[in-house]
């Protein structure tokens, strides 16, 4: 039988009919529907038991309480946490912390540089090899009798990790421990001058009804970001008043009841003119002045002579009537507070400005009162360790004095001068033979970052403790990667949020993902492998033992609740405070009792210890000094200022991918950074919105795009901090401009602090 066309067609039709009567088409249709709704390449997180681990975020100095939601052992979400329950908030950086934990930027094991610095060629070491490499180098430097040639940079000097690093240097014989600059530097110096104590201040924003903010980015990451935003919002709901002094219309200025666009750099004069008004019109707190203020009359005479509102109207750009009206509103408020710290408070600013703001708070008597400025003793009071037994080498090294001269006869009021340290390395390449950088990124975050990078290039041996391949890690010889904050225990004093002196506990949420190590253990392992006098200063088996011993009776409460509030005690006078420091490193073992162990000081004694001087010889020198000014550069008619945003991480950790996505296109357009400029100024330079331009300063230059904004003072240019990374990963590097490549340090004549707030600049068409 031969198959004809007709038979074939019949067969096909029969086949089609049979197929329709079989499940094949219907089942396949169903499967394709399921398949197309659940693409096999779409990752589906595995299911498991849900749990929450309370901890503390250490990605910025706010140190907010967090809780991390986990599914089995995988962290899936970070949420804010209130002290009394889960009703906290969280900022974009805190929220994106999981991308730092699980992202591809992590350094997964100790690395040693094998090519040129910055080339990014590494070989992996075991921890034993890495520690041995550091110890060999450090032993060699000490054997030469120059222990002071070892230096260390840390993001803070608070908490046991930073103190272990400082103790390592002290036992080794080097006074060159530096913390990254911040507004804390000038605030602490102001307190030393006015109260004679080592202390810190924090504003009780939850109860205040008038905030006079000298450029603080209250809505963009100042203090503890979420807490600050909530406090300001609630204060305004209570009909409180926010006055923002800032040359551009920031988010904070936009929320303010009054926005005073003062000339940048003139804020100290503005504050002193307000003091003039408050004293002149008798609106100061007379009882507070009588009970707690020294040198009031002298100060009153000084401001009367030099800081009349009409005298500063020209330099500040604010007319005398506005200054008077604002000062009186501030003085007449029930619980007013004046805040200092430009932006997020990441640069010290001038000491004169910090002092002037503190004096404003003293004049209205709102110090140590609800809603006012709280003065607390130095936050490290709970760290009471056995004294360091120094040998001859260590004593000689410690006696050599700090390279930055902070705390010496030239700059007696300050403790850390990072820009002077960098300058010193630049001038004397042999001054530092080894540098330990513990979770800080000076090569990106310090002004004139190219100069910082060049200075680090002159140091023969640079060790980074970074968890990320940041700009500083790229310039190092050895990377000893640390556990991330979600993988470790750490005590975290809270000095920027909450009115009470609080210590929070950061605790491991997940087991370490890679071959990283707790920085405390790294320091202990290095110390224990060094010769006897150094090793003997570290009696703890490991960091966790050290932490539990240090926290002592606080441990169990902190482990269960996550925080501990220190009892209020009088701040120790500077001389005694210095003794505490000495006790930490050199003094007798049972030197000074732990702050919380000491009985609460009687109120009178507390007040006595917290008397405030408004004028004495030291204060007079600072208050009468000229403002730190920018040098005039020919051909640079404009002024570039940095600004801070809650959408850009400007600290040690860079923006995770989530945060890069939320940066506005008026700040980052594709890969280009946008410079904010007033339309009038732009028109004079013939520049239009979105146009490319070359931004030049005496320090550097960069290609930018123009963004016109009516909200910025004519003649000014503004760029955000935290952009323009060259390291990390493809998500972050090459995006925008690092403003620190364009600005340099400006030394405050009164204190030596880096008072930079901007730089002269010019814009040309690209």
């Amino acid at each position: 039988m031969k198959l004809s066309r007709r038979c074939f067609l019949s067969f096909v039709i029969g086949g089609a009919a049979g197929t329709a009567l079989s499940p094949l088409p219907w089942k396949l249709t169903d499967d394709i529907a399921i398949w197309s709704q659940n693409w096999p390449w779409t990752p589906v997180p595995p299911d498991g038991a849900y749990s929450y681990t309370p901890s503390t975020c250490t990605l910025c100095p706010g140190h907010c309480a967090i809780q991390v939601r986990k599914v089995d052992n995988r962290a899936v979400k970070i949420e804010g946490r209130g002290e009394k329950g889960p009703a906290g908030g969280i900022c974009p950086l805190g929220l994106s912390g999981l991308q730092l934990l699980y992202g591809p930027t992590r350094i997964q094991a100790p690395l040693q540089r094998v090519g040129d610095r910055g080339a990014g060629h590494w070989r992996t070491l075991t921890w034993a090899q890495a520690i041995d490499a550091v110890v060999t180098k450090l032993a060699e430097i000490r054997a030469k009798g120059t222990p002071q040639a070892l230096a260390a940079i840390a993001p803070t000097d608070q908490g046991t990790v930073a103190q272990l690093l400082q103790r390592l240097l002290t036992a080794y014989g080097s006074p060159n421990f530096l913390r990254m600059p911040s507004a804390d530097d000038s605030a602490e110096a102001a307190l030393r001058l006015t109260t004679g104590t080592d202390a810190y201040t924090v504003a009780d924003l939850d109860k205040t009804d008038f905030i006079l903010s000298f450029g603080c980015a209250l809505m963009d990451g100042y203090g503890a970001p979420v807490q600050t935003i909530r406090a300001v919002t609630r204060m305004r709901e209570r009909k409180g008043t926010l006055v923002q002094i800032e040359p551009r219309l920031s988010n904070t200025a936009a929320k303010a009841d009054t926005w005073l666009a003062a000339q940048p750099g003139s804020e100290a004069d503005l504050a002193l003119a307000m003091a003039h008004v408050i004293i002149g019109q008798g609106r100061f707190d007379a009882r507070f002045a009588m009970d707690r203020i020294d040198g009031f009359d002298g100060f009153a005479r000084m401001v009367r002579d030099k800081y009349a509102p009409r005298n500063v109207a020209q330099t500040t750009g604010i007319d005398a009537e506005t200054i008077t009206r604002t000062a009186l509103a501030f003085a007449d408020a029930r619980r007013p507070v004046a805040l200092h710290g430009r932006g997020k408070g990441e640069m010290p600013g001038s000491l004169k400005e910090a002092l002037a703001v503190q004096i404003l708070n003293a004049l209205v008597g709102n110090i140590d009162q609800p809603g006012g400025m709280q003065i607390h003793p130095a936050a490290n009071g709970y760290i009471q360790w056995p004294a360091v037994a120094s040998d001859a080498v260590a004593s000689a090294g410690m006696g050599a004095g700090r390279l930055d001269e902070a705390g010496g006869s030239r700059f007696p009021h300050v403790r850390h001068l990072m820009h002077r340290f960098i300058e010193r390395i630049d001038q004397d390449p042999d001054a530092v033979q080894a540098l330990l950088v513990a979770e800080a990124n000076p090569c990106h975050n310090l002004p004139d970052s190219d100069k910082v990078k060049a200075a680090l290039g002159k140091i023969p041996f640079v060790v980074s403790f970074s968890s990320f391949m940041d700009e500083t890690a790229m310039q190092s010889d050895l990377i000893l990667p640390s556990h991330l904050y979600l993988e470790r225990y750490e005590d975290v004093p809270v000095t920027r949020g909450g009115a009470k002196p609080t210590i929070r506990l950061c605790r491991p949420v997940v087991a370490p993902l890679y071959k990283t190590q707790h920085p405390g253990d790294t320091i202990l392992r290095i110390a224990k492998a060094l010769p006897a006098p150094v090793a003997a200063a570290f009696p703890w088996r490991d960091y966790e033992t050290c932490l539990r011993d240090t926290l002592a009776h606080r441990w169990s409460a902190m482990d269960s609740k996550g925080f501990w509030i220190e009892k209020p005690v009088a701040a120790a006078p500077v001389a005694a405070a210095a003794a505490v420091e000495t006790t930490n490193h050199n003094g007798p073992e049972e030197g000074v009792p732990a702050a919380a162990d000491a009985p609460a000081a009687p109120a009178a004694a507390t007040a006595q210890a917290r008397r405030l001087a408004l004028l004495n010889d030291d204060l007079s020198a600072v208050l009468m000094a000229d403002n730190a000014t920018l040098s005039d550069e020919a051909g640079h008619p404009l002024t570039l200022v940095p600004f801070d945003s809650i959408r850009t991480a400007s600290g040690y950790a860079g923006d995770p991918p989530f945060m890069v996505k939320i940066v506005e296109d008026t700040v980052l357009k594709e890969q280009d950074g946008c410079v904010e400029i007033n339309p009038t100024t732009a028109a004079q330079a013939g520049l239009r919105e979105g146009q490319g331009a070359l931004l030049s300063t005496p320090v550097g230059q960069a290609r930018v795009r123009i963004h016109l904004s009516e909200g910025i003072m004519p003649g000014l240019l503004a760029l955000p901090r935290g952009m323009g990374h060259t390291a990390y990963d493809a998500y972050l590097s090459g995006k925008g401009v690092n403003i620190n490549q364009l600005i340099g340090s400006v030394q405050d004549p009164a204190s030596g602090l880096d008072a930079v707030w901007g730089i002269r600049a010019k814009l040309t068409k690209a």
Partner: protein
Amino acid sequence: MSSNDDPKTNGADSDAHLPSPSATTHTIPHILLFFILGMAASMILGWLIFPQLLYSQKNQPIDFNHRLHMELVDQGCQSCHFFREDGTFSGSPKLAQCISCHDQRLGLSENEKIFFEEYVAKDREVPWLVYARQPDCVFFSHAAHVEGARMDCVTCHGNTGTSESLRPYEENRLTGYSRDIWGRKISGLKVNSWDRMKMSDCAKCHAQYADIHDSSEQTRRDACFVCHK
């Protein structure tokens, strides 16, 4: 004489140019035969061969004996498949639960040996293949059904609790999901309530209860978002 009178052009074949010598053999039964052949072939393909091609078979890592365990535990299925404190369902037991009894080797069976040496000793989770796992686009709450609606495990999972051996897991090669969702029968027909767990099977039950099928304000029909979040 016209060409129409040509006898060669007459007959069943209407093709004027290519007369077929076998035209007389193409009777209607003949054509029907081919129709039936085609139909039979495609139905054999669709009903018998297609399921064989569509599903791959995998054996469970351990041949677990439910009946044996059920005799030893106090709380039935929930002894191992329990609700956590927060109301979520634990699903297949984790190693930690197994170890509460199997912290040492119990018995000499081959399965116990595999379980102890490969998983307990190495602290590895057993990669159980879950017969009843719904596609990821489906939100299913055990708590709502077992604790809320007081349904019995057997209604959906059958008599698994009395089985002595685990049958091979059949995976749909296209979707990657278990055969149990569509059901053992390729026709999609079912005898028991647990034979199949497609959307229509869920919807059938949901439609019977007013309090769970009227939550769609938009359509006033069975609410899609009860299961598709």
